């Protein structure tokens, strides 16, 4: 699922820490979150609602007070809102 994150600078630290949650190592290739530059020069957030065999499904960092991607994001409030939308959309799809 793809969302636009206003004011994202594309640092992709979220990708690095997301992988740490899943595999206790830094490996963006397996992350549930992916940052993609869009055609206007801004950045979009792609979240995995299920695993594709390499990338893990986002579990919203179950067990943690705050998802790691949000904790390490300079635009934390915007990303938090995206995760809320993601959780809501995923639940509605599964329902």
């Amino acid at each position, binding site marked *: 699922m793809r969302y636009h994150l206003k004011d994202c*600078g594309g*640092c992709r630290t979220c990708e*690095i820490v997301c992988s740490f949650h899943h595999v206790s190592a*830094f*490996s963006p*290739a397996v992350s549930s979150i992916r940052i993609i530059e869009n055609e206007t020069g801004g950045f979009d957030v792609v979240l995995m609602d299920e695993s594709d065999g390499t990338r893990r499904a986002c579990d919203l960092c179950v067990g943690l007070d705050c998802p790691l991607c949000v904790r390490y994001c300079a635009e934390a409030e915007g990303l938090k809102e995206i995760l809320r939308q993601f959780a809501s959309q995923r639940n509605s799809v599964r329902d």
Partner: protein
Amino acid sequence: MEHSDELYTYAGKILRVNLSTGKITTEPTAMYAREWLGGSGVAVKILYDELRAWVTPLEPANKLVFSAGALVGTPAPGACKMNVSTLGPMTGGWASSCSDSYVGGQLKYAGYDGIVVEGRAHTPVYLWVQDDQVELRDASRLWGKTTWETLNCIRSELGDRELHIVSIGPAGENLVRGACIIQDRGRAFGRCGIGAVMGSKNLKAIVARGSGSIRVAQPGRFMEAVARVRAMFDHARIRDSFRRYGTLFCLPRKQEVCGLCYKNFQDCSIPQELLTTIDPMRSVEKYEVSRRSFPGCVLGCGRELYISDGPYAGLQTESCQFEVVNTLQTRLAIEEPTFMFMANALCNQLGLDVDAAGGAIGWAMECYQRGILDKRDTDGLALQWGDAEVALELIKKIAHREGFGDILAEGCARAADLIGRDSAYYAMHIKGQDLYEPCRGSNGWLLGTVTSTRGGGHTTGALVIETVPGLDPEKAKEVYGVDNLDRPLEYEGKAEAVLYMEAVSRMANCLGICLYSTTCLDVYQTDLPQMAELYSAATGWETSVDDLKRMAMRQLNLEKAFNLKFTEFDRRHDMPTPRDLSEPIPSGNLAGWQIDLAKYNRMLDRYYELHGWDKESGYPCRETLVDLGLECVADDLERIGKLGSLPGMCGKPA
């Protein structure tokens, strides 16, 4: 990806790519990691050991070392830097330049901490690194293209719009001495002419994509350290301004302290009307499209701009840093406020260092002003101050070595030698490297810039902090160990502070941490204790601040020895330019202030004494090198008669 069980935070291997034979091999990073960390540390060890004294910069026997910092690939704050080092064509000695980069991280995820490029390809090639698959691919159709075109072509060819690359433009291909290497479109491995060395090897680009992982030895301790360091930035006084404008926010302060270059250093501040007209912060507000930031960065200094009006309407590019304002906009007295973005973009496309361009063009315009050059020398161009179109034309001529540009492509020092006519006084350079740094009015900045092993440069020891707005003197004393950092006109204590900054800058580089997220720019940011903790947790090797300082001094001494091996540098080359020594600041808040030669020499004496270097020659002494575990280097220097040995002239290191 294979991963060493014993080596944490490193990928574990270094690639060796011989372009002459096409042979690609690997060697273990463990050969270097413990003593030389990463980045420029590993590079200086490899280059000092492997380059014979007869090697020259642009021949196949030179080597080009790309090395990611030890913490790159982790979320350590600001850990996004990759370094490139070589024997450089600008100074003829140590050449090293780092840049924000996604490529460094991808290289590590692919399994490699660095790449040693050797030889020269018979035809243009680029290197494609994808995990275990490493191949040289034909780049014939890319030769002649700009870095921006090259990025698009390689992304199309390899079918991945998200790939990151480093590449050279026409300047590197044409062996322009100030050619640089560009990461994607907007970040430069800028100084020292490393792009010319890449061009001399027929290597157009390096592309990396990795699917592996980087592990740290003590994950819990490491992540706690990362969180603590990130929290420190909440107290940084520059944080909000830096996040908004990058280093551009320094411009008003630099005007106050006479830290600007106007008409090739004829003045050290600019007319108030020009300051108002060019205001780059207003331009950022007006043209910003989005932010730009790199892995681990807590500050986020980048901005993507779309220039919607004026002579360069339609240009989309990343905003420039303060350096471009100084080295091209005010140096050439250009009023058009968007010129800085156009000139920066053009230099990036052509793969030309902005400082090398500014140094050469500034020298030429001053020579034209004084009648040393005329239209017969300049292909008919009138080199008038403030003429933006002429400046852009000269940038293109330099990159293509066309006409008068062929002379400017040599850098201002060599161009002055070629032209003669007493023009050398106006060539502002240190050790042959064009100078963008105004050296009058800030003595710690001056000392660090002038003594830099890579030639003029403020990122390897200069006290940037002296003129940054909002300095907290009490905290500065605690961090730097001297109590007068807020008094840039004083000479005392500056050698000690430069010694500290030499350690911070080298360790930041080796770990891959952006210098602007350290105490270089704000005393509340990452310091050596935080670097030691991050590195200890990441590697499992307990490393103290004293250990880091010692490794930094070992590296600095080897850089110095590298220069002594390939150049004639000595104390004379650690002196300010003739203009900086002989002319007082003409106007502004420091009007009339002049460098005091006797006091400068005493400051330099103290600097040598702290380093354990001979005060007369500037050469390292045997005791200093032996203390740092560099006894073989002492033997080397003794063999070529460059070992500091004068009785009573050589202090012990602090």
